[in-house]
């Protein structure tokens, strides 16, 4: 019975740094986009401290928050998530998103330089957000018209809040 259970494969579609991979783990062999890689876990006090991958020892540290894993490996840190959680896409510029302008961090609206209905040019400063005692210019990602802007000077916003929409 145990054998039947353990024979089950763990298969995940993962995304990191704009790359996507199908990763399957089974009994000391990983398949990464179909390419087989043998590995051994090296643990200390149950904590993964290294992987032996194809005979080479690679020190690693990993941690997880919800559906995201953070991995330190070869002098870099990789944030890895299940690809289904968020479609892979190019890294957006600060404050830009597909739907509208997002707050890059929590802060206070220092200035609203445009009004709803106003035409703006790409690169034009739409809002000034103050956070950490510094001012950050939030610029229009494209030419268009401000279709949504309900914030006023002094309003507090959370990171990721939609500041304005330009269509």
């Amino acid at each position: 019975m145990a054998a039947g259970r353990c024979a089950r494969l763990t298969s995940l579609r993962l995304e990191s740094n704009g790359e996507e991979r199908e990763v399957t783990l089974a009994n000391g062999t990983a398949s990464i986009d179909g390419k087989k890689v043998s590995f051994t876990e090296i643990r200390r006090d149950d904590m993964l401290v290294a992987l032996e991958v194809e005979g080479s020892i690679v020190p690693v540290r990993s941690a997880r928050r919800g559906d995201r894993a953070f991995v330190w490996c070869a002098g870099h840190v990789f944030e890895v998530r299940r690809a289904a959680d968020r479609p892979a896409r190019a890294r957006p510029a600060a404050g830009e998103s597909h739907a509208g302008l997002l707050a890059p961090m929590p802060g206070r609206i220092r200035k609203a330089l445009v009004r709803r209905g106003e035409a703006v040019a790409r690169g034009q400063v739409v809002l000034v957000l103050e956070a950490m005692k510094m001012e950050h210019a939030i610029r229009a990602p494209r030419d268009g018209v401000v279709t949504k802007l309900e914030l006023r000077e002094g309003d507090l916003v959370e990171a990721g809040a939609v500041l304005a929409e330009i269509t």
Partner: protein
Amino acid sequence: MRIGTVAVFADADAGAVHVDRADHAVSLGGGSVAETYLSIPKILDAARTGGADAIHPGYGFLAESAEFARAVERAGLVWIGPPPEAIEEMGDKLSARARMRKAGVPVVPGTDGSAADDATLARGAEELGYPVLVKASAGGGGKGMSRVDRAADLSGALDEARRIAASAFGDDTLYLEKLLAGPRHVEFQIFADLHGNTVHLFERECSVQRRHQKIVEETPSPALDSPLRSAMGAAAVEAAHAVGYVGAGTIEFLLDSERRFYFLEANTRLQVEHPITEETLGLDLVAWQIEVAQGAQLPAAWTRGELAPRGHAIEMRLYAEDPFDFLPRAGSVLEWVEPAGPGVRVDSGVDRGSTVSLEYDPLLAKVVAHAEDRRRAIERALRAIDELVVLGVETNRPLLAHVLSSAEFESGDYDTGLVSRLPPLAPPPVPPAAWIAAALSLTRRAPSNAPPAAADPWEAAKGWRPAGALD
């Protein structure tokens, strides 16, 4: 020194690392920074509660407040810092510039601050010639500072700088400085005792900056030769002497491409980057601050000029920030492992489980490498930053490694434009080990400090294999 320590903390920071490391810790209560770390009465109350005899202001909140220094002395406590008058004279950038000119120390050409209205500053900018830098007289740390390239942009820049200066420093007085082409930022550590001895403890090269803030410092500076070092050191000592300085301080200079140097500003406290001086001189600067406050004389070897730096030291500032756009990042530290080994020192303020908030400066740690020469110090620094593990919060470590492995930094011939000239920082390819570790982590039983994600006990028992299974 066998001196007990009392730390202070806002309630939100009860779990902070410094609270555990001190012998005692006293709460400043809750509320904003103004109600906690910036509240002079609360800090004095905490000193009384904790039984402190002296206050060391560190290098953050209130460290350069003459008002705080006076209040500490009035409360009958020892102030481990320069006299309040010296803080005042150096703290106001305009009065410091005037004082240095009088003492014969060269200053960056700029407006004198007799009037700081738009019209006067616009005339000043024309006289200096664009580009100019807008600066806040009460400023520091690059806040309220901006570059203006043409007359049309001046008024907007002045508005913004006044707003920032008013909210950050409570004083919106501005002045202009001529923007020097390709400047290096070189500072001298100074030290003075209560007996009239003032010395310099050599320089720190601070030209690796982003957003006018330092991220990598090294000593000795690759830009100085012996005669220039002597001339700048003498000017730094003169500057300190001119204001009756006592204790540790820093005189910052700009060095232009013609190797002319100009007084920039003075920092009347310990600097963030002081460890590189400690490493090359083998000294504990904080211990000497305390000794000087107790009335000790500086050692004769210092005053006779017999101190000599040994080897080369580099500091890297690890910030919780996006390495691409430098915006601060918050979060909790899921894993933290510091590099170690000969010549590696880490001064840190976080540990596994720490919370990084956007309330404070996002500096997490200073990683310092010391070696016999510059080439070896760079190698050691790169190895140390590679070995540092910080998970859960995005940091600037890719940028630090990028700077240290760049040809321009390696050449030693760089200036404050270094970071902007670096080739674009590309995300590294994800190695197989990272995909495997991530898959293991995402399918294993969640650690006790996180909500369990895999309810299937067979999924969770990854490290355990029933006999005979799968072989």
